[in-house]
């Protein structure tokens, strides 16, 4: 696997070409793992389509779609062990699901429920909505693992825009100094809302920034699930079992956001449809499907069965989320501190009195 790291930052790792033709060494994965990878990609795509529609129908708030970015999320998360940690951005629905969050909890978060995503034992931090703030957290998780003598690895997920923030620099710098078991996975989808990657940094690659911190940097085709898995797995193994190389790795997974930044964004204002279409030709799902058909892992019947099962799974998750009652207003006052302060007790009692006096309809606007 050393060849993953002994390469120039612009020497992009690729195993499947855009059409799904094998152009490199595939990872040594059993068929059931490859099928699980394929199913997770389909699940992520279908979940995303339904989520965008829920927002359009007024059944959910603003939502950040991930279509186009499934491979980087799914394949990387599949290279982690349950004891490893993920510190995600807000677009990492597929990665955090693979690592243990339920789809209904993910939906509840975007439906405005405070508990969304936290009803879990998975080692997943809450989605970082500010940009790049989770990168130093990842360094901290990894440092704690190292100081505790554990072999857990921490992985940050963030976008190309995040590399412009101070927290990116500070987090990677500290990770390099303390040689922590961390992977920094940059989902470079080409656009930070309306600002293209070229306007984000004059650096020719994002992977090349690793050199400044004395850590490894690798660029991978983030729409190639096999390449992403291979690179991530190598980075995780290197972090877990230190050898001659630095333990931290910056991975630049080159990919594209097919849709809007969020459902509140209109990408037609700032980018050409022709560019979107060119990237759609590299869609990770048909790529892996073609490969798996050629290896005999998939056929029409199995593809149909996967489609039916992901439809059912997403429908059930939506039903569960929508049948979850609106949180009790008291929940607002819980978990601000381990013990609510006297002032919080007083404010909770005040809200109770107001609701008793005027009824809940006097508060709710819709």
């Amino acid at each position, binding site marked *: 696997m050393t060849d993953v790291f002994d390469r120039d930052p612009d020497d992009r790792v690729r195993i499947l070409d855009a059409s799904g033709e094998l152009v490199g060494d595939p990872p040594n994965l059993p068929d059931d793992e490859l099928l699980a990878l394929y199913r997770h990609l389909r699940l992520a795509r279908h979940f995303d389509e339904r989520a965008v529609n829920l927002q359009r129908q007024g059944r959910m708030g*603003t939502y950040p779609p991930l279509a186009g970015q499934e491979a980087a999320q799914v394949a990387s998360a599949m290279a982690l062990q349950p004891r490893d940690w993920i510190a995600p951005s807000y677009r990492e629905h597929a990665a955090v699901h693979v690592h243990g969050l339920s789809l209904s909890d993910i939906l509840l978060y975007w439906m405005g429920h*405070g508990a969304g995503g936290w009803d879990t034992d998975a080692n997943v931090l809450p989605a970082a*909505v500010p940009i790049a703030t989770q990168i130093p957290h990842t360094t901290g998780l990894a440092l704690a693992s190292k100081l505790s003598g554990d072999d857990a690895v921490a992985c940050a997920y963030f976008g190309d825009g995040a590399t412009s923030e101070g927290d990116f620099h500070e987090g990677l710098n500290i990770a390099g100094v303390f040689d922590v078991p961390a992977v920094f996975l940059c989902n470079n989808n080409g656009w930070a809302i309306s600002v293209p990657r070229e306007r*984000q940094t004059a650096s020719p690659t994002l992977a090349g920034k690793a050199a400044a911190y004395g850590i490894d940097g690798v660029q991978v085709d983030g729409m190639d699930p096999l390449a992403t898995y291979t690179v991530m797995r190598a980075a995780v193994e290197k972090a877990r079992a230190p050898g001659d190389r630095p333990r931290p790795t910056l991975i630049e997974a080159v990919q594209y956001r097919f849709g809007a930044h969020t459902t509140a964004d209109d990408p037609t204002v700032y980018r050409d449809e022709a560019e979107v279409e060119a990237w759609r030709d590299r869609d990770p799902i048909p790529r892996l499907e073609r490969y798996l058909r050629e290896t005999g892992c998939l056929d029409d019947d199995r593809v149909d069965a996967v489609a039916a099962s992901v439809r059912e799974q997403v429908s059930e998750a939506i039903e569960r989320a929508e049948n979850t009652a609106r949180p009790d207003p008291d929940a607002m006052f819980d978990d*601000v501190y381990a013990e609510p302060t006297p002032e919080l007790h007083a404010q909770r009692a005040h809200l109770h009195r107001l609701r008793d006096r005027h009824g809940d309809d006097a508060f709710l606007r819709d």
Partner: protein
Amino acid sequence: MSTDTDTDTQNLTLVQAVRDGLRTEMERDDDVIVLGEDVAKNGGVFRATEGLYEEFGDDRVIDTPLAESGIVGTSIGMAAYGLRPVPEIQFMGFIYPAFDQIVSHAARLRTRTRGRFTCPMVVRAPYGGGIRAPEHHSESKEAFFVHEPGLKVVIPSTPADTKGLLASAIRDPDPVVFLEPKLIYRAFREEVPTGDHTVPLGEAAVRREGSDVSVYTWGAMTRPTLEAAETLADAGVDPEVIDLRTLSPLDRETIVDSFEKTGRAAVVHEAPKTGGLGGEITAILQEEALLYQEAPIERITGFDTPVPLYALEDYYLPSPTRIEDGIREVVDF
């Protein structure tokens, strides 16, 4: 209210008035430069800068990398050099990386150089809740900035004031944090003077005259407060509603004059209660007009919790019912 206006007007929403204010000041002064994330080609995520890039070009309307501290720090350098930058922070909840630059440098560049260098910069940011936005998109933390000497803090509540106050902020010799109530960006329209229009900083506006109780508020809370005031008026209570408009420096004279008339007061803000501006206004009344006071002063505010995700947002934000209830507590004391 003194204003300096042309006679022609346009019927604008609040966010259109932001754009019109920026455009007018950019036409008037070549040193005015807009910069931030998505402000140029995209016209801003709320379209507050729409068309400015096409009209003024990429030297004056600049899409920056995603870097709040960098945006504000760069603006401080531009201001020290002699330009008048107007950086945009996309949401107030994302202003914190720039906090160090604002409080450690923008606010005190004048002091530290005895006036040799100054920082005539306006940091614009939409603030506040009520739009079912994701986490961190509903913050109302004006008190952080009011607490910092050297900064001015402005929050408009009407389209005409938005344009006039923004113009005054841009022309002001000191740094201004200009917070825009995104809940009412498109809630209503108003006639806004075309061309040159300023509203002075530091002057509150009496939105409703009354004799029974003084209610102090600003920004997006002004409308529900006025709604509560009208409901109370129908029931025979006559509240005076004061829109502070500038939160630093506060218009102490208008605040105190009203209280001397009514002897009763309530403050409405959506920020958390503890450490919020309600406490500052109460202290001013205690300092200046204690002997006029006839009832405890009520603070009708957001709770001392993180802004909840939107399923509970309506319980967090002061509603007309809650405001009416709080004012009654004061009046019935």
